[in-house]
């Protein structure tokens, strides 16, 4: 999209425009070596991503470890500084915002982390953990703050009396509820959920998924839901984006992606996921990928998946396939897509 279009968006952002739009986004981490610690190379964690997230939707982001999905999520809410590209939030360019202006926007964004054991300060009470964002943004004090904390605990299905307890007194699922209450404290419109259920027991995962869905409709939230488990992502998301080695390779509504994947990586990812049904599972055809993901320091030329791709041809090494339309809301980046 040309730069002028963004300026227009900024002036006239309405709820029907994308809430978040990201163009050519790159987040690279320098690798330094030698006595002088000179930067010798970069880990190209996010390497040219275009993505739009609509208001009120859940966009799922899947990919294997190291593909850059968490880095992308963190860069979008400006927890990490982008190396190149732009991030627009509610039509406003927030790519280079700092200080007070950025803080204003942070009230609109929140994050839920993977590890409910590491993401809560063990020396703070639950009340203070949830109250901290209120203090930082000066949203509530005294009695009002206390009531807000009680209310938030209730919203996530916990007893308000727990406000005086410490994180170690709670199980993983309960801690994740506390993390969710903290994310909701500032009244955000956009929440990045980074693997929010992967650390939880199987029987607890569904409780948290249902809670996130309930909160979404109650508070009109928009989610970027990052996970490696495609079954969970497909369940919770309206659209799913598949990431491989720093790039989005396919985006489509969940059902469509499952029924008719176009990128060979999506196809093999889907076929690798076990379905809890022995009859179906035994009849499934698997595309087992050879080898491992290539290095993000020195990604393959052309299409990054070509080194593992069963359909790769010489052309794939020469040119990088762009994201192209395969029908309504379906994009894929492949020269020789699946039928």
């Amino acid at each position: 999209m040309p730069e002028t279009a963004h300026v227009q968006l900024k002036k006239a952002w309405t709820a029907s425009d994308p809430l978040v739009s990201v163009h050519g986004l790159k987040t690279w981490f320098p690798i330094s070596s030698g006595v002088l610690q000179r930067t010798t190379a970069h880990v190209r964690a996010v390497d040219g991503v275009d993505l739009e997230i609509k208001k009120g939707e859940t966009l799922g982001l899947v990919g294997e470890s190291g593909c850059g999905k968490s880095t992308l999520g963190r860069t979008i809410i400006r927890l990490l500084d982008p190396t190149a590209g732009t991030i627009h939030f509610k039509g406003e360019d927030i790519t280079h915002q700092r200080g007070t202006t950025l803080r204003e926007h942070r009230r609109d964004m929140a994050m839920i982390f993977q590890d409910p054991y590491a993401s809560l300060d063990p020396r703070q009470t639950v009340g203070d953990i949830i109250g901290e964002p209120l203090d930082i943004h000066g949203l509530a004090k005294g009695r009002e703050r206390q009531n807000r904390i009680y209310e938030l605990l209730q919203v996530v299905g916990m007893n308000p009396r727990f406000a005086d307890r410490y994180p170690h007194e709670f199980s993983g699922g309960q801690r994740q509820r506390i993390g969710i209450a903290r994310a909701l404290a500032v009244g955000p419109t956009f929440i990045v959920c980074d693997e929010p259920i992967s650390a939880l027991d199987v029987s607890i995962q569904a409780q948290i998924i249902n809670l996130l869905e309930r909160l979404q409709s109650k508070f009109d939230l928009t989610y970027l839901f990052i996970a490696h488990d495609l079954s969970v992502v497909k369940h919770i998301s309206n659209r799913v984006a598949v990431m491989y080695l720093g790039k989005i390779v396919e985006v489509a509504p969940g059902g469509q992606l499952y029924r008719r994947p176009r990128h060979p990586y999506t196809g093999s990812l889907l076929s690798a996921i076990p379905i809890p049904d022995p009859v179906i599972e035994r009849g499934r055809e698997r595309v087992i990928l050879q080898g491992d993901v290539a290095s993000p320091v020195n990604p393959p030329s052309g299409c990054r998946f070509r080194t593992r791709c069963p359909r790769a041809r010489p052309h794939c090494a020469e040119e990088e396939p762009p994201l192209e339309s395969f029908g309504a809301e379906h994009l894929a980046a492949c020269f020789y897509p699946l039928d």
Partner: protein
Amino acid sequence: MPETLLEVQDLHTVFKTKAGVVKAVDGVSFEISPGETLGIVGESGSGKSVTALSVMRLQRPGKIVSGKVMFKGRDLTKVSEGEMREVRGQDIAMIFQDPMTSLNPVFRTGWQVAEPVRLHHGLEKAKAMDVAVSMLGKVGIPSPATRARDYPHQFSGGMRQRAMIAMGLTTTPKVLIADEPTTALDVTIQAQILDLLRHVNRDFGTATILITHNLGVVAGMCERVMVMYAGRVVEAGPTVDVFAHPKHPYTWSLLRSIPRLDAERHEPLKPIEGLPPDLIDLPTGCAFHPRCKFTIERCSRDVPVLNRVGDTQLAACWVTQSGVELKGA
């Protein structure tokens, strides 16, 4: 019915902690025949790993307080530590969840893979290394002769798990116990490792005990499955039957609570309410009863015993044993 290779009878393993005694394994029995694949599923704390460790006598600091582990006519809970060392690696091999920590970082991978044949078969270094290299090749490591000279940190996660499997197989064990072998790996790598385990089972006839929390993995891999909850077996039977008609409310609820990739429509998940039990302070009666939708008065009073329910399954549930079908919203 083929002869039984390994039989565990009424195994009890406890851990003494400051807070009290944890009955990690509380009366577990099962058997496995040559070439069979048995799945043990359960959540963290269900006792599935401690069951496997107890079979290998690696349960310390836990203590096996009663029960038998019958293998080749001997009770492994009674044999000397020296004899047990012969069994480990030679007859029963185990691979662990975390391939990052189960290889020694300061020895070359090939040397470690060769260790079991050096120790158990008394092969000299060069010959043991040949065995290791050929086994690394069989588990799908490219240019195995070169890679055998690499250190573990030069291997990716999937490669390390392959090396662990190769190490376990060098002595052609009768039983391979795989404790969450793919949990730390990405799905595409998981598919590679599961495929490898299927080949091992078929080509070497190794009986496999696969421990996992992933019901999908069990569905694709195991002929029989055993479901554990709070240290006890709550259900067991042929995988096809257990998944089609679960006879324990825990299995039934768990299957309905997980999102399925092949779901046609978006329906809200049906979670199991409540929390997994505190192992030091277990609920009276059936440990699952506080979370169970079907609970009857007797459930909070008497611990249910594992009994036949239906033609092929066993379930430890008063409700289904009385003939009630599990169904509902």
